[in-house]
């Protein structure tokens, strides 16, 4: 993964000031996030929290700017980035070539595995390949929407994890592919032995902070900050807090 | 009931909630007789007339047609029970109430064909004859909205006649009409009276009542104040309330 396309951009911004300069001048990094994607971006009481939220806060600290969150739904999140409503998106956005054609990504700060979740008594789904011809429920949020399609599954789009699991349990779909972390977190909150992980992807999936194509200097600054966080162990600490494990690499 | 009695109305009481509108109405219609019901606004004329057609259900009293049906009303009488009265009478409304979505011909034949289930040929023949008679043959396929008020009211009369009722009920059939059109409707009613139709006619046209009615019933405040031959009640009323009313209408200014 990574942001291979970052090099060809000539760092010119439409208004003459670079994206980084704008952030630095205002002292605020505006971040778009869903606020409804546990455990990455969600609310604890009225407080916005989550792994991605903490990470981007720490990034801001390293950059010496304040971080301001704008919460919106997935449907609108890239539109918001395009329109300049926020500088970056931190919402466990999976890095894939399609997205990289239109946006820049930071170095990944979250590496996880896609898992196929089925009902516990399901025996005929054992791998990604066995999804061919099956029906899966995917939120368009994730990379997994594309992956399920690639595997030949019949994809039903849904709004999020909760709905996908409901469909699964009601027998309306055969499986859902999602982040392993999401599955683990939901099992922690709502232990439910009627669903299980049926297969795990061989390839890791990586998520990063997304920004507009012209924000090369901002991308560099964020990468620098992430590098520092990695180096001083902060990133690992945030990860431990949410997952009891280091998922940042 | 004397054999020449077509209809006997006795002791009709009708209240709307607290408002007692009819407080015991009695009158009789003989076969072939024209009865004019007159009286001040709000005296209950319309209500009384509607009771005869089962459109209003009184709480007490009897409406009896010679040869039936006969309905004795109580507080428990339902609208369904009252509706048998429609077998003998038919109503012509003040505002004609033609069906705007049906042609003139359909308006007058819908009852005989769809409700009475009479034979189509016979119904069409009757309709043609009656429309001819009121001068509206040419309008059979027109919609009511394209007719003048007088023409609409004449269609209303034909619609009632088509049901072959024994008693025609008119509720101020000309009062919603342009003054110039009043005549054409009155002429039709007068002819029907002369042909021997029995009818009860609520009207404010006292001159007309004097001309065509055999009997005049003067109502006031929910009771019958005076009944008698038309010439007598309208020409030399004995009751002072009748006198005042007749005076007010015949010499308004």
């Amino acid at each position, binding site marked *: 993964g990574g942001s291979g396309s970052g090099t060809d951009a000539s760092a010119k911004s439409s208004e003459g000031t670079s994206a980084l300069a704008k952030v630095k001048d205002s002292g605020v990094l505006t971040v778009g996030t869903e606020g409804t994607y546990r455990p990455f971006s969600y609310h604890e009481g009225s407080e916005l929290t989550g792994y991605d939220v903490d990470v981007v806060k720490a990034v801001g600290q390293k950059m010496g700017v304040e971080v301001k969150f704008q919460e919106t739904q997935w449907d609108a999140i890239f539109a918001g980035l395009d329109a300049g409503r926020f500088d970056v998106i931190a919402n466990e956005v999976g890095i894939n070539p399609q997205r990289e054609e239109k946006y820049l990504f930071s170095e990944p700060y979250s590496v996880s595995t896609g898992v196929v979740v089925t009902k516990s008594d399901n025996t005929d789904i054992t791998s990604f390949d066995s999804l061919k011809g099956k029906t899966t429920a995917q939120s368009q949020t994730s990379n997994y929407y594309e992956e399920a399609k690639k595997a030949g599954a019949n994809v039903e*789009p849904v709004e999020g994890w909760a709905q996908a699991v409901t469909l699964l349990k009601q027998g309306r779909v055969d499986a859902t592919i999602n982040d392993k972390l999401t599955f683990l977190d939901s099992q922690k909150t709502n232990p439910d032995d009627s669903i299980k992980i049926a297969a795990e992807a061989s390839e890791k999936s990586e998520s990063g902070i997304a920004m507009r194509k012209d924000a090369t200097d901002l991308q560099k600054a964020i990468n620098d900050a992430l590098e520092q966080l990695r180096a001083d162990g902060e990133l690992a600490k945030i990860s431990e807090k949410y997952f009891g494990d280091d998922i940042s690499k | 009931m004397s054999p020449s009695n077509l209809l006997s109305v006795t002791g009709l009481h009708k209240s709307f909630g607290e408002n007692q509108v009819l407080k015991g109405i009695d009158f009789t219609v003989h076969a072939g007789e024209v009865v004019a019901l007159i009286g001040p606004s709000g005296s209950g004329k319309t209500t009384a007339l509607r009771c005869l057609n089962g*459109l209003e259900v009184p709480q007490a009293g009897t409406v009896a047609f010679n040869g039936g049906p006969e309905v004795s009303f109580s507080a428990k009488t339902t609208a369904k029970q009252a509706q048998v009265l429609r077998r003998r009478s038919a109503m012509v*409304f003040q505002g004609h109430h033609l069906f705007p979505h049906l042609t003139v011909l359909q308006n007058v034949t819908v*009852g005989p064909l769809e409700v009475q289930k009479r034979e189509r040929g016979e119904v069409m023949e009757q309709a043609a004859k009656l429309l001819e008679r009121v001068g509206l043959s040419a309008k059979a396929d027109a919609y009511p*909205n394209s007719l003048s008020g007088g023409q609409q009211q004449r269609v209303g009369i034909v619609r009632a006649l088509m*049901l072959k009722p024994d008693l025609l009920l008119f509720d101020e059939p000309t009062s919603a009409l342009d003054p110039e059109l009043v005549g054409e409707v009155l002429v039709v009613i007068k002819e029907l009276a002369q042909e021997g139709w029995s009818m009860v006619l609520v009207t404010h046209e006292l001159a007309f009542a004097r001309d065509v009615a055999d009997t005049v019933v003067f109502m006031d405040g929910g009771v019958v104040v005076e009944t008698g031959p038309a010439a007598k009640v309208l020409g030399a009323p004995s009751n002072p309330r009748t006198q005042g009313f007749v005076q007010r209408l015949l010499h308004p200014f």
Partner: protein
Amino acid sequence: MDSNWQLFLDSLWPLAKGAITATIPLSLISFAIGLAIALLMALMRMSGNKLVSSIARVYISIIRGTPLLVQLFVIFYGMPSIGITIDPWPSAIIAFSLNIGGYAAEIIRAAILSVPAGQWEAGYTVGMSRTRTLFRIILPQAARVSVPPLSNSFISLVKDTSLASLILVTEMFRKAQEITASTYEFMLLYLTAAGLYWIICLVLSGLQNLLEGRLEKYVAK
């Protein structure tokens, strides 16, 4: 700009297909069933029986007082928990029909009440029963009055069918979102979809005008 133009052209057919295979049939079917429910509810609401009219009142109030989204969710995701599992399309049709049933009930009731009372009586006096008068005399006249507000409801329904995507029905708006998901051209796709909705609505308005003209003679003057 050029590639946008290309994307616009490329997405037109998939979106139109979504409209033809889902948005339009879903709207039509739901509206037809909804009207039947609405008529029933309107009559119940006008009934002299307190209980019957209360049932209709509560039904109408709940339908109009809660978001359609929730109604869809309850039927699709909620019913299975009481053992009733309904497929996406039937679920959508049920939800939209019930919704139209609630909204149109008030329209139909108002339209029936707007027919002069004399029309009922004229029906009775030629010997018709209540029911026959309703269907033969009153409803044809109520139709004219109710066409404009009903057509409003229908137009709203067409746009609301986009919510069916939430319960796995792939209609036009979902198609737009799918294309967006791989091209990230939200504004373009949404505007294209909006344009198609607009065209559908213009056609419907045209039909409404035609129908109003046809029914013109049905109004008592």
